[in-house]
């Protein structure tokens, strides 16, 4: 694929994302009339008198933070999926590979059991996720074996252990209140997001994305394996360290505010590769755009399809799994 065609893809996807974002802002329980939204923006900017105060509040303290957060979360999860797949040389890897999600679940569940509120839950989840990755990356050091396989196996060990820990917490939780909160948290939702949370994850999103786009070509080289990367003069420890840290921070931040959301980190990078080929210089920016778009659509459906919020993992699975089957169908000749 030539460069012009790639740039055209970037342009079309960016445009589509903007259109979808505007459309999502107009969708909601209070009003789905774009004129109301337009008026609310004008009155907020002070160029028009206040006509509908409720609409203005809904738009600026609910819809805008939520739309922004859903796009960032989608981009973060997909991006870290793409990066993990590249670094671990395995297209079946998802962002949970190093135990981030199970760590975050344990963190969130302990905050719920301790009776803490939303903010503590998010902080606990973030810390839990980061601790899980730290543990998973510490095991290879103890074993003095720096290979990717050992790292993946450590991730499985840590994830398995933490999943059981989380199960213990569910087991002892008060059935009507705590247990259901934990279960709902694990199904993922952005329903209670506010501007503060959106603002809190944006630095991680921005820094992580910029760094990973900067390192995208190096991810190609990492995907050749340790021996080849080293003979090409790469400082594997350093580059792999930075990429894994960025990807883990992205996942942990996303998971900490919205709970665990499956499928997106696995499927979106595949879709990106189908569009622009395997070169990570192109895959990474396209993954960010597609991930943002996918999550925006999912979350808009989640909040507007039924009168109750649909947990996000249900939708990502229902939509993501058939998508993945279709992708496999398209690529079947290249898979052995």
């Amino acid at each position: 694929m030539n460069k012009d065609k790639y740039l055209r893809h970037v342009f079309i996807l960016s445009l589509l994302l903007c259109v979808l974002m505007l459309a999502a802002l107009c969708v909601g329980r209070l009003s789905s009339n774009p004129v109301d939204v337009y008026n609310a923006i004008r009155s907020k900017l002070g160029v028009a008198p206040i006509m509908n105060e409720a609409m203005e509040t809904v738009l600026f303290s609910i819809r805008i933070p939520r739309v922004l957060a859903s796009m960032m979360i989608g981009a973060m999860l997909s991006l870290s999926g793409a990066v993990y797949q590249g670094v671990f040389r395995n297209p079946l890897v998802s962002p949970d590979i190093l135990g981030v999600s199970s760590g975050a679940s344990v963190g969130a569940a302990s905050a719920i059991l301790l009776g803490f509120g939303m903010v503590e839950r998010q902080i606990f989840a973030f810390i839990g996720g980061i601790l899980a990755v730290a543990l998973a990356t510490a095991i290879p050091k103890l074993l003095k074996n720096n290979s990717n396989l050992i790292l993946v196996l450590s991730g499985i060990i840590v994830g398995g252990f933490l999943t059981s820990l989380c199960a213990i917490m569910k087991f002892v939780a008060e059935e009507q209140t705590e247990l259901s909160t934990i279960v709902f948290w694990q199904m993922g939702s952005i329903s209670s997001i506010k501007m503060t949370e959106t603002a809190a994850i944006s630095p991680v999103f921005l820094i992580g994305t910029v760094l990973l786009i900067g390192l995208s070509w190096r991810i190609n080289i990492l995907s050749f394996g340790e021996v080849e990367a080293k003979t090409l003069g790469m400082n594997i420890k350093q580059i792999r360290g930075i990429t894994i840290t960025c990807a883990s921070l992205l996942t942990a931040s996303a998971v900490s505010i919205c709970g665990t959301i499956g499928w997106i980190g696995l499927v979106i990078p595949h879709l990106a590769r189908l569009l622009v080929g395997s070169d990570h210089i192109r895959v990474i920016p396209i993954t960010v755009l597609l991930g943002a778009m996918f999550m925006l659509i999912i979350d808009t459906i989640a909040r507007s399809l039924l009168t109750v919020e649909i947990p996000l993992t249900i939708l990502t699975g229902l939509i993501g799994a058939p998508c993945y089957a279709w992708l496999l169908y398209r690529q079947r000749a290249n898979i052995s």
Partner: protein
Amino acid sequence: MIIEVKNISFAYENSLTIFRDISFSIDEGQIICILGPNGAGKTTLLNCLANIHKPTKGKILLDGKEMESMSSKEVAMNIGFVPQIIIPSFSYEVLGYVVTGCAPRIGIFEKPGQEHYEIAQQALEQMGISHLSHKYLTQISGGERQQVSLSRALAQRPKVILMDEPTAHLDYGNQIKVLRVIKKLAAEGYAAVITTHNPDHALLLGGNMAAINTKGDFTYGNCRDVINEEFLSSLYGINLNLRHIADIGRDVCIAPPL
């Protein structure tokens, strides 16, 4: 003298010594074949030269500098490595794969530019496979992949090219073609070190050879001086014959009837 190997020994952690006290040097335009039975340590020796393994004793000098103290980047500017086989996890385009040979000369947050793609294209032309540049790695044959991998080593602009059993996964025709390429590269001034299971390849290439037997004994010298029936038979633990075929004009290593 590009590389000087001085009294190196190697042992994997908690295991027996693979080889000990090996010394030789690698000069411009020289071909060195590393021979030896399975498990004797041919690849281990090659990996030491590639700075993938560090020798447990002794040192390797690259342009007079101790290799252990150099960064992998510095080493990669002088030494190109061609792995036994490339199994891509993702289907990269050939040109995109070859351009990664420029990695030692590109900053960590940079991406390859026009000039690097030109170097990659030149390397493909040098190998005579520029028509493959926009194919995907999964679309080309094993022989072509070997050539692509060698092109990438050339894009590194190295002085020495190390190849781990470059003929192992190739059919007979492609094996001979790869040997021809190695000979041509040596004529252009590259030093080439290859490991091979076939003593005949050492005879065909006609340069120097290094042999490691299962006891870890090391022999080094010119093929013509070192290779004889007795040597080959003891190296591989079977009877082997060496014959001069007059109408082909070379020595051939052949096994007697089974």
